[in-house]
């Protein structure tokens, strides 16, 4: 299986990363880090760390946007994340592997 050979499976099988991927794949629109953190029950900085890794292996696309914030005239940069096209393929591969094991 490709995801096993290229090491993606090992990185994806981290509990927090897997939860983040599930959250992103189930979302209809791109999500902010804070939203993901709330959804998976992790600290936003921890989510950010996992998103860096997931972005590195090409499962998540991230971009920065300027959002309005109280006390800041210019606004603040927020990270907006969406699933990469490869994600659905990876998740289905994992589901297949789990079925095979069962």
């Amino acid at each position, binding site marked *: 299986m490709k995801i096993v050979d290229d*090491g993606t499976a*090992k*990185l994806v*099988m*981290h*509990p*927090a990363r897997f939860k983040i991927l599930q959250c992103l794949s189930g979302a209809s629109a791109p999500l902010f880090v804070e939203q993901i953190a709330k959804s998976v029950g992790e*600290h936003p*900085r*921890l989510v*950010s*760390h*996992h998103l860096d*890794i997931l972005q*590195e292996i090409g499962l998540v696309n991230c971009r920065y946007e300027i959002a309005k914030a109280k006390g800041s005239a210019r606004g603040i940069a927020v990270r907006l994340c969406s699933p990469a096209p490869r994600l659905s393929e990876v998740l289905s591969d994992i589901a297949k592997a789990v079925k095979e094991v069962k």
Partner: protein
Amino acid sequence: MTKITWVKEFGKRVYLTFRLWLMALASVLVLSIIIGTNILFLLPLTVRITLVGIYLVVTEIMMFPFVQLITVSAQQTISNFHYSKRHKPKELYLQNARKIAGRMNIEYNKPIYVTENPSIKSPFTNAFLGKIYFPSSEIEELHHTENEATFAHELAHIKYASRFIGEMFLASLATWIFAMCLAQFAINFTAFIIAEFAFMMFAFSFVIRRNESRADWTAGKATTPEAVISVLEYFRAKCKGDGGSITHPSIQARIRRLERLFDSTNQQSED
């Protein structure tokens, strides 16, 4: 470049555990002789020897998981026959090791031992010899930032080894003083043993767990707290438990403590 040495890991961990066990045995022996001469001097010699013998056996079995030691030895012996050298770690994962050591003000020139023995599931450090051992499975399964965090944690044990040994000495001394004081008042020998043992366990456990927390904190500062927390979460999932032990605080407690670093690093960046 940090040298990565590939070793067959047979018996290394058992040896380490055995060394600790031997040290504890020696200290308990000394303690028992003192107790024997103070409390039991009124009893006949045969009774005294029997009681000290029982005391030694009970304390040893309770103080160090003797059964676990035998199980681990057997497990390692069996697995040593079965595992084969199939996986090789990528040197890339540990190429920043020396950089981290430099950041932590440690001169670390010893090789990092990478083992593929399946019975070794987590990295560990022999603080006395200053050697770090990594299971190859972990190197392959974790991201390089997380491997660096693990390495920083193990390096912290080496950095604070002398402090740790000093604290262990103080804990032994405190136990000894406690036992000597208690011996003046204790009437029941069994109650004395339980009280002394409880104190010893509490003191040693406190020092060892404190050492772990200190290593987490140092690793979080040297790398990032996120990476250390991520490794802890990985182990929580792998070990399917979060109860903590005599030597390690619970993973949840360690994560909560590390999350405090988020605020401090935020403040630093704002400054």
